[in-house]
Structures are given as C-alpha cells and as structure tokens.
C-alpha cells in the first residue's frame, strides 16, 4: 500500500536532522495555520497563488529562492563548523549525515536558490523593460513557478521523511546506482530536480518567445536593454541545455527503477557517459545563472554612473559569444577522465577563450564608470565588489583550465574556492544588487541604505575570509568533501574559513535586518515617482509598484534608452508628452492550473520516491485532468475599463508633473 514508506523513514535515532526538520515543519504548519486563522487565505489564493501576473510570479520566485538560499547557507555553516572541529576527531556530524549536507547544499544553491532568484528577476524585470504587459504564456509561467516550488518542497520533505542523497550535488554513477545507494536519497534528488527542471524548461520557452515576439513598438533588437539580452541568452541556454539534464537524469532513473544498464559497472554500462551528459548541461548552467547577473551589473553600472553603458554592441556580442562557447567547454570538469592530450588541449583552450568574452564585459563596465558621476549606493557597491571578486575567480578558472594544473587541483579545495568565487562573486552579488535596485519598483519603497552597506561589507569581506584560505588549503592538497582529516598543515586555513563564515553570517543577519528596518520605515523610504535612481530603461517610466497592466499605453520606442530620452526631453522642454487616449486593456485571467500542477507533481514525485505506484498513477491522472480542465475554459482574459486605466495613469502623470516642476526649480538654482 505505502511502498517502501514505513515509520522508520523518520530519523528517530538522529537528533540533529530530527529536531531541525521538526522545527522547520512546525514553522511551516504554523504559518499555514496562521494564514487560515487570520483569514488571509482568500487574499493569498486570489492575488498570489493563482496569479499569472509576471510581477507577482517574479516576487514568489524570489521569495522561494531567498528562503532556499538561507537553508543552503545553514548547510554551509554546518560543513565549515564540522571541518573546523573534525581535525583528528570525529566532529559532530556523522559521515552519512555530513554527506547529505554537502549534497543538499549544492543542490539547493544551484537548483532551488540560484535558479529561482535568477528566473524571478527575469520574470519581474523583462516585460517591464520591453515595455509590454506580460510574458507570452502567463499560465505556463505560473505552472513553471509551482513546479520549481514542488521540487524545492520535495528536497525539504527529505529532511523529515527518509534521507537526502549522499553522493554530491551531481549524482555520479556508479555511486548513485542502486548497488551503492540503495536508499531513497538519490530518488528524492532525481525527482525534485526532474520536476523543477521541467518548470525551468517551460520558463525558457516562455521567455525566448516573449523576448523575440513581444516587445513594445519600436523596440528592435539593438534597442533592448542589456538585461533583456542576457535574459535571452540565458533562456536560449535553458532550452538547449535543460533537456540534456532531463535525459541524463532520466537514464539514471531507468537504471535505478527498471534495472537498465546505462551507467552501471556491468553489462556494458558506461558511467563516463553520465559525466559527459551531465556536464554538457552543467557548464551552460553556470552561464544560465551568470549571464543575467552580468545584465544586472550592466544596468546598475550605467544607472549609478549616470552614463549610457559603454560598448553596448560589444556587450551584446560578448553575451552571445559566451552563450555559444559555453557548450564547447564541458570536458574541463573532468580532464582527469583521460580523454587524451589532444581532447584535453581543445577543451582547455576553449575554456581560456571563453574568458575573452567576460574580459570584454569587464572592460565595458570599467569604461562605463570612467568619467561618470558615480554614486556609491548599495547596488553599486555589490557591482564594484563583483568586478574585483570575479576577476580573481576568473583568473583561478583559467589556471584550472590548463590540464596539467587541473590534474593537480582536480576535486581539491582550490576548485571549491574557485567556483564559489565566481558563483558568489557574480550570481549572489548580482542577486543582492538586483534586489536593492528593483525592490522599490516592486514594492514602492527603497531598502534601507545603512543596513544594506553593512550587509555588503560583511558579505564582501566574509567571502574573502572564507574562500581565500580554502584556495591555500587546496594548494596544500586538501580534497573536497572531507568529513574529518588528520593533516595539521590544513588546520589554520580551515579555521580561518570558519571565521569567514561568521562574517558571512553577520552579512546575512544584516540583510534580514535591512528588510525589517525598511518595511518599518517604508513611509520615509517611499518612492513616489516610480524612478528612484534616475533610471534609463522603461521599467522606471511606470509607477512603483506598477499597475497590473504595467503600461497604460505601450511606449513607442524611438531609440536606445527610451525612458532616458523621454525624461531628458521633458526636462528640456519643461513639459510632459500629451495625454494619450486611454483604451480598455485585456489581461490574462488568474488560474489555479499552475498550483494544481505543482500539487500533483509533488504527489507524484513523493509516490515515485517511495515506490507507491497507485499514488503515482493518481498523480498522473490528476495532471492530465488539470490539463484538460484548463484547456476547456472559454474565457481566459478580463477587461480593465478605460476609466480605470486613465485614473491610474493620470495619478502617475500628476506625480511626474510635480517632479518635473521641482526639477525645474532645482535647475534654476544650479
């Protein structure tokens, strides 16, 4: 009846996971009960859970990503503290638990923190920057989100029921085969990643179609803001790379569930096939995460230097160059496979070449700042911190790209330090810059600068304090994923890294305080104009938060940086453009399709993990039923009357007029 599921699936004898999982579980239940008791559920259901508004979905993605980022960070704290204690000792985490922690850390950070944050930002920003009202397939967008949430939920269920994978964040066979991992950990991993992977793939389809087919009139390719270009490149990579992930994991699932021999040791299986396939996805994945971050930095540098982005076209070319070449470097993750000198040389050179594209970008950012009137706000601090950090991370990457050096450094702490250097330095710094930068657009008030700067300095210095010692430890021969060790030479560096984590923790606390303080001071921090940073692209031309329809009339784009042009013209001529003729607007209707899809996907994933076949059948039938039910609906749009549109837009224009008048006075005095 319940497959492999028994009471013993709950780790009664292991206090640490049991207590922590129970606390998380109780908080989760508590929040749900609180929502229902307080009567917030109808609001949540109507405005958020069933929402197909790209802005709402973006915010939900970000929330999911940030919560998972915290969970992944807790795993990181446990790993660093375990290694700090486990010098010629056992430490406090037994090996099987420690192995789950590093596996969960990587899985969470890449799939359930990094991806949701990046996709959330694209969701929120891209349609606004393109000057349109929604993405191509709004309900599909909601479904993507709920599938990602479903995957994240499955990973967290594994805390309490059963176990998580112990095989690293990529389930390398043959270790991940049933022979060596008979438990449910790997299955949890596989189903969680498969389900969220489908969501990500649909996001890719959605955004490529949006960016290529739905743009404001006049928004030709070379007028799109760089963030849109990087989002396009990132989503093209999703479309080309995520099916490879799906294929590789599906083969492993067939091995585990039906006794296939793709990657087994016997019957002709070839485990290096898995390594090749997974990295043919894995390397583009790095760029799926980092290219949008590059886009964010481009926007931030330009805005806070009060200059157009330097070398816009070269930036576009560099982005697409990286997009393509990222498919030609995967083998550098396993030079030690022994593919031979020539193969390794090709991939080593390709890896070094890809750094050229990034180099172009770095120079463009530096030249954007050159001669600008730079304002050192929090997003700008993160961006400058990124340049410094990413250059160092890129250099160590080029070191690792040299096969002979890689043979020495493969799977060492040097590698761990390298990829954290680039991922934290670019993706995390970029995400935090973007949060501060676009937060006022989403919520109508700015984040507190004081605590933002504390968060930056703790995060920035904490990063160096944590990972520079790990570079050294790696050069001294320390390998990754050690539960305990006996080499005295490594000890001081491991302790230094543990101290760095304390600084990072302070940064995380400052970040949370920043949010709390900002919400309490929201009236002082209110952004009335919708343009708090003197921005340049179209998202700043609408109100903060934007109305459901984003733009009362679609902007007519007549050049690059359309909003900046309009703004300068208004200031020059001291008047706003004439009031447009308002028309009723059709917007997509909300739909619980996505939520139900996520619900049944979670059910199906859980059933498959525990071999409860009938429940998996129910889930499959549920998914089909929801699909038909959705396909059957007749009315999929609702109309916002012209008067409502006019009222909203006139309020925005009034504030703008006031701003213009105030600005005129300021110019007179200047």
């Amino acid at each position, binding site marked *: 009846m319940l497959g492999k599921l028994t009471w013993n699936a709950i780790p009664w004898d292991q206090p640490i996971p049991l207590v922590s999982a129970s606390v998380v579980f109780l908080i989760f239940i508590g929040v749900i009960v609180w929502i229902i008791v307080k009567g917030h559920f109808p609001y949540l259901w109507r405005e958020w859970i069933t929402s197909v508004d790209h802005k709402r979905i973006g915010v939900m993605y970000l929330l999911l990503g940030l919560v998972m980022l915290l969970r992944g960070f807790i795993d990181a704290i446990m790993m660093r503290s375990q290694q700090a204690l486990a010098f010629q000792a056992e430490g406090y985490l037994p090996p099987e638990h420690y192995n789950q922690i590093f596996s969960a850390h990587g899985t969470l950070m890449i799939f359930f923190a990094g991806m949701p944050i990046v996709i959330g930002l694209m969701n929120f920003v891209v349609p606004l920057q393109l000057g*349109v009202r929604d993405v*191509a*397939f709004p309900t599909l967008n909601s479904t993507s989100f709920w599938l990602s949430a479903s995957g994240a939920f499955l990973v967290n269920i594994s805390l309490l029921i059963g176990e998580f994978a112990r095989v690293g964040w990529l389930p390398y066979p043959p270790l991940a085969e049933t022979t060596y991992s008979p438990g449910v950990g790997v299955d949890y991993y596989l189903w969680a990643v498969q389900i969220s992977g489908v969501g990500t793939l649909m996001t*890719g*389809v959605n955004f490529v*179609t949006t960016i*290529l*087919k*739905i*743009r*404001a*009139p*006049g*928004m*030709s*390719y*070379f*007028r799109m803001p760089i963030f849109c270009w990087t989002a396009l490149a990132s989503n093209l990579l999703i*479309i*080309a790379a*995520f*099916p*490879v992930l*799906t*294929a*590789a994991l599906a083969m492993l699932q*067939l091995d585990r569930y*039906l*006794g*296939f*021999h*793709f990657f*087994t040791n*016997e*019957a*002709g*299986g*070839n485990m290096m*096939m898995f390594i090749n*396939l997974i990295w043919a996805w894995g390397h583009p994945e790095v760029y799926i995460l980092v290219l949008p971050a590059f886009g964010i930095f481009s926007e931030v540098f330009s805005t806070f230097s009060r*200059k*157009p*982005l*330097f*070398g*816009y*076209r070269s930036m576009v070319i560099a982005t697409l160059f990286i997009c393509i070449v990222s498919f030609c470097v995967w083998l550098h993750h396993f030079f030690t496979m022994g593919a031979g000198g020539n193969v390794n040389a090709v991939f080593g050179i390709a890896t070094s070449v890809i750094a050229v594209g990034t180099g172009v970008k770095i120079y463009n950012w530096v030249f954007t700042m050159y001669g600008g009137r730079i304002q050192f706000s929090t997003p700008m601090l993160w961006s400058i911190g990124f340049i410094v950090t990413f250059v160092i991370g890129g250099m160590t990457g080029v070191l690792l790209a040299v096969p002979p050096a890689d043979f020495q450094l493969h799977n060492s702490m040097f590698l761990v330090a390298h990829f954290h250097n680039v991922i934290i330095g670019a993706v995390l710094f970029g995400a935090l810059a973007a949060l501060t930068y676009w937060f006022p657009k989403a919520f109508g008030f700015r984040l507190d600068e004081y605590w933002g700067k504390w968060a930056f300095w703790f995060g920035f210095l904490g990063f160096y304090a944590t990972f520079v010692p790990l570079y050294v430890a790696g050069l001294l021969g320390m390998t990754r994923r050690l539960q305990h060790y006996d080499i005295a030479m490594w000890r001081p560096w491991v302790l230094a890294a543990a101290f760095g984590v304390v600084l990072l923790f302070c940064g995380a606390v400052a970040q949370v305080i920043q949010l709390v303080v900002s919400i309490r001071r929201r009236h002082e921090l209110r952004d009335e104009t919708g343009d708090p940073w003197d921005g340049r692209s179209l998202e700043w031309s609408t109100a903060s938060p934007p109305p459901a329809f984003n733009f009362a009339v*679609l902007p007519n784009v*007549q*050049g*690059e*940086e359309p909003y900046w*042009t309009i703004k*300068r*013209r208004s200031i*020059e001529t001291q008047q706003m453009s004439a009031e447009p003729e308002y028309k009723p607007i059709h917007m997509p209707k909300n739909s619980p399709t996505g939520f139900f899809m996520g619900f049944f996907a979670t059910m199906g994933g859980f059933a498959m993990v525990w071999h409860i076949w009938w429940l998996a059948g129910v889930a499959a039938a549920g998914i*089909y039923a929801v699909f038909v039910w959705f*396909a059957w609906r*007749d009315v*999929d749009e609702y109309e916002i009357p012209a008067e409502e549109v006019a009222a909203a837009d006139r309020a925005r224009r009034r504030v703008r007029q006031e701003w213009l008048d105030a600005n005129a006075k300021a110019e007179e005095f200047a």
Partner: protein
Amino acid sequence: MSTFEALQYDPYKLGRGYGEGGDGRDYATGHGERGPASARVIVGYGFWIFLLSDIVLFSCFFATFAVLRTATAGGPSGAELFEPWRVAAQTAFLLLSSFACGMAAMATRARSHLWTQAGLFVTGLLGLGFLLLEAQEFATMIVGGNGPDRSAFLSSFFALVGLHGLHVTVGLLWLGTMMAQVYFKGFQTKILGRMLCFNLFWHTLDIIWVAIFTVVYLIGVAP
C-alpha cells in the same frame, strides 16, 4: 549644443548611440519593431521552440545509443533482434498517420467538421497501430530474455525507441482531447492554434521516427 544634443553626440559609436542620430525618426532595425506579435504567431512560435528542446532531448538518447550500440555484453545485437517487416509496417503506419493529420489540417482550413474529425480519427488509429506493433516488438524481446536489463545496448535501444513511443502515446491523449474540443467547441481561434501545434508535434514525431529508422534499424544492424 543643448544637453540633450550633447548626450546624443556619439560619432564613433563608442557608447550607446541615441536612436542612431536622434532626429526623431525611427531607425529601428531587426524584427519585432511593430510591437507585440499576434496570439497565433506567439503560440506557434512558442511551440516551435518547445519542439526544438524536445529534439535536443531526443538527440541525447541518440548519442547514447550511438555510444552503447556495440556494448552488447555478450547478448544479442540489433541484427539478431530486429525484424524488418515490423519496422516497415511501423514506418508505413506513422507516415500515413502524418498524411492523415495533414488532411485533417486541410479540412480544418475548409472548416469541415466531418472531415476534420475523420482525419484526426484516422491519424489516431494509425498511431495506435504503430504503438501496438512497438508494444509487440518490446514484449517479444522481453519475453525472449532480451529486455533492457540484458545489456547497455538494449538499455539504450529501449530508452530511445520507448521515448518516441511515449511521445506518440501522449500525442494520442492530446489527439483525443483535441477531437472532443473540436466537437464541443467548434473552430474557435484558440482551438485552431492548438490544431496547429498538434500538427507540428505529430510531424516532428515522424521526423524523429525517420531518424530512429535510420540510426537504429538500418545503421544499427550493420556489422
């Protein structure tokens, strides 16, 4: 020179130019400058993109098959297992079903309910025939002890051909839903878009089958 003009001054195109000269004229280049495309274009385009990703998925299984083709682990090879008559019949069924699907699309264009349903029905019938033949092939092999757990070669064979079969199955489910929709709702714009997507899907499965026919059943039996 006013501030506005100064900002636009960019003779060497070093920075971002402002509208390529900023004389108020629209120099937009590239596609999409006329604003958002129509719903029909968006749906069709999005589905094309999805199909491309599906082809990437298939290509992974093709690549795996190519690598594991010789890994028979002492078991039978393709030449010993595949039966040409069945593959020929399967190919005929699938290609004819694609033809019927195309006829259904033409009937839809002519707004003929009867012929649309008839075309779709024949499409589904031929697709079902294809699936039954495939099921028979799989069953024969498994009963003969040559299931996917026999060797890596057979694993990759079952996965690749089975993935295509899974697609056909999903296509049949979709087809049935589609026929019901046409019956109850008629030729609404939305449903016409879905018919377009279904056609694209079904023809893509055909193209993939041609590749499977070539790679698995022709090259696969070569010594």
